[in-house]
């Protein structure tokens, strides 16, 4: 199945879509291949991710990837969040992602890392 039930569900009913007022960390980037754009915002408390939201204009894989990523890091330390890799997301997405769409999975990881850049030491 190209689009797993997890991807469909997260695309239709995302749990972490939206924005935060006054986030501690925020970053946005674009996938030059397809023009997908994702923004991730985080509120940090005691070196942990207390709240996180994503918005943007992207394909289902990218949106679902962002959603499971934020679920994975919620309540976790910042240094855990920046170390999340594609393998962890693929496992949660339960999908057989082709090489041509791997960027869709990894864009949210890069955006999260951009948001939290410098926050590891600053906590």
């Amino acid at each position, binding site marked *: 199945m190209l689009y797993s039930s997890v991807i469909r569900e997260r695309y239709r009913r995302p749990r972490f879509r939206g924005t935060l007022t006054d986030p501690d960390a925020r970053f946005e980037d674009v996938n030059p291949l397809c023009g997908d*754009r994702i923004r991730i915002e985080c509120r940090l408390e005691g070196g942990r991710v207390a709240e996180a939201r994503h918005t943007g204009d*992207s394909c*289902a*894989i990218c949106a679902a990837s962002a959603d499971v990523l934020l679920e994975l890091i919620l309540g976790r330390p910042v240094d855990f969040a920046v170390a999340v890799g594609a393998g962890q997301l693929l496992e949660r997405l339960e999908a057989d992602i082709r090489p041509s769409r791997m960027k869709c999975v990894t864009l949210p990881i890069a955006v999260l890392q951009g948001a939290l850049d410098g926050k590891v030491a600053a906590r």
Partner: protein
Amino acid sequence: MTLGEQCRRDFPILGRVINGHPLVYLDSAASSQKPTQVIEAVQHYYERSHSNVHRSIHTLGEEATEVYEAARDAVRGFIAARSREEIVFTRGTTEAINLVAQAVGRTLRSGDEILVTEMEHHSNLIPWQMACRDRGAVLKAVPVLDGAYLDMTAFDGLLSPRTRVVAVTHVSNVLGTINPVGEIARQAHAAGAVLVVDGAQAAPHLALDVVASGADFYAFSGHKMLGPTGIGVLYGRREVLEGLEPAWGGGEMIKEVWIDHAQWNDLPSRFEPGTPPIAGAVGLHAAVEYLSKLGMERVSAHERALTAQCLEALARIPGVTIYGPMNAELKGAAVAFNVSGLHPHDGAALLDQQGIAVRAGHHCAQPLMRRLGIVGTLRASFSVYSTAADVERLARAVATLRDEL
């Protein structure tokens, strides 16, 4: 039998089964498939006649030179150029435009202007950005009106005695819009500018007459018109080509060389340094023969009918937005569209599950996407082997796309 049904048997790849479905190939604007005639011509060349061209004084060298130069003659005829010296072989449209941008770029002065349009493929935009950056010239763009047509009033206003180059696509690779090249040429020449036309999406579909078009340069690719990858054509009007320095240096483009200087070769060798894509030229020759045998008027009519059928079928599907002219008479063989709530990449991936190949994304036309206010589109495009059945299968699949995700 329609043209599409007649041609299909010549294209072995169309027999493939993709994800359990017979292939429906609707991505010919990105790259067309190749008929047996082209594949065999390239194979025959490599098996029988391959050698380097022009300076090899042996039988194979002479044969290779002969077939390479015969390809030039065939291309000249195909686009109705006046002389074979006006046909420069390149690796493709992109290289052809870069060649012009570098050669003409060297003659630019600070404050000169280059006029492009908002509907250009990046390959007819970035080379001009680079030329402007290197020479302190100014890049301006003709806006797109109503999401479909060039704003010709704005074009008139943007042209000035400072305009040195007008660079425009003949047929938009997204909207399909056929631009009024003849009118643009008249105005560009009246302003003293040269006209560079990106013909990548026109050469496979329209009967071309480069002299009548008024273009000073006309660029196109072999692989979009049934030929191999790695071969393209730059037509340059002789008077303009003769006045240009070569873009790149190397073997073959010279007459005599000293350590500190060289004398350039005649046209067209001056613009073809290094070993050219000989097998590519042989394949392009076979492709041109294939198309000419069908007749380009017939090819155009066939593809226009499919475009009309596609526009009509997609327009009936709820949630579908079509971009560009809705009249098939005004466009090339491509239909760009979106399905509401569906990212084009998801749409293309779902169509691929049904064996249907379409293009999705920004189509290397980001300024146009920005003007349309979208990240990308799906695009179905046609060639000689496309059929009404292909369009029907596309329309049926598109109608159920929203339920699939």
